[in-house]
């Protein structure tokens, strides 16, 4: 008997949250939306910081595919209604293999900005739906299109802190109103 897809989804989310919380030394906080109708599994922010955060959708597989004799890949397929597709720097996908033997996520995992994911995961539009298929090599030496998004499970916390810092520069609150710079004698000092 294998676990249900609901159990699998929940466990993959737990694993992701665990690696973020512990791997960041407790700096990362995760929140689950009360209603799940925006395809966000978690809202992620740095503890004590308000107004800056990003959303993440967790996708998992419990088996790997053999692409060739020595190459195993993780394959993820899903459909999403056209009007619900979100392309935002503040919306990311986390993709991982949940190994039934070790009962945990296996390395590598993948953290992918939504815009990159939607472009690279062989998008096909059919009717009112987008279909995405991701096939990423799990082999250490692979240089496939997904290799730049690889993250080791123990590095996930640090990587998400780095993403949060980068995103905070993009955040509307971090940009100065254009008119401010036009005022003579205004000095802008940043920390």
């Amino acid at each position, binding site marked *: 008997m294998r*676990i249900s897809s609901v159990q699998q989804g929940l*466990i993959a989310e737990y694993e992701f949250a665990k690696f973020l919380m512990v*791997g960041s*030394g*407790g700096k990362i906080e995760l929140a689950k939306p009360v209603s799940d109708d925006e395809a966000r599994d978690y809202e992620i922010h740095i503890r004590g910081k308000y107004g800056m955060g990003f959303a993440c959708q967790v996708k998992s597989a419990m088996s790997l595919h053999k692409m060739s004799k020595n190459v195993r890949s993780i394959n993820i397929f899903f459909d999403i209604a056209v009007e619900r597709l979100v392309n935002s720097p503040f919306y990311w996908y986390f993709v991982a293999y949940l190994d039934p033997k070790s*009962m945990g996520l296996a390395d590598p995992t993948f953290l992918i900005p939504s815009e990159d994911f939607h472009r690279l995961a062989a998008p096909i539009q059919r009717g009112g739906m987008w279909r995405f298929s991701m096939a990423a090599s799990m082999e250490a030496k692979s240089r496939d299109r997904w290799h730049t998004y690889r993250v080791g499970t123990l590095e996930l916390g640090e990587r998400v802190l780095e993403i949060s810092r980068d995103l905070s520069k993009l955040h509307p609150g971090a940009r100065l109103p254009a008119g401010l710079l036009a005022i003579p004698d205004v000095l802008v000092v940043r920390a």
Partner: protein
Amino acid sequence: MGNQGRSQGGASKISDVQQGVVTQNEFAKLVMMGSGGRIELAAPLTDEERRDFEVHVHGRYGSAMALQVKSAMALTRLSANALYLRVHFGVRASRLVNDPAFWYFLAYFNPATIRFEDPTFLVPSAVLHEHATPTKKGDQWLFTFQASMEPGSHDQWEPYRVSQLALGKKVTQVIDELRKLRASLDASQLLEMPELIWARTAQP
């Protein structure tokens, strides 16, 4: 939520609440996956009874066990070669539950590997309350669970050791045994009924 005991060392900077959530989720994962999805866990909406989870077999009603998760994020060295899992906690005397269906799960969560380390411990509440050096202080019972993590150890907690990958099967077994216990208790009440006649088919 904080399921950890006190004085666990400073190995991790995560908060007590985070530690509680992470270790409860880790336990739930191991039980779900290790039972092949047969075990379902439910978290009480109000945490007033010291139950972290109600655990039952999928599709089966009326037989469940309750569990309290306790964890430490550092081990204690009690001699040159012996590392111990040490969990210290207090319970208000009025809230102490000794019931065959109430169990403790205790484990060391290793912050370096970000998962539990073997062995973990699954202990009936009555056994833990009796053997974890109970001390009464005011209206509180204080307990110190101290178990060797060494593979060859034969300390008092050895019978309750479970490898994390075997947790799902062990929990299933405990629930099955609790079900039999309840059935035999129910049957024993029959003996108190007046004018009851036992009938058996003749053995050849």
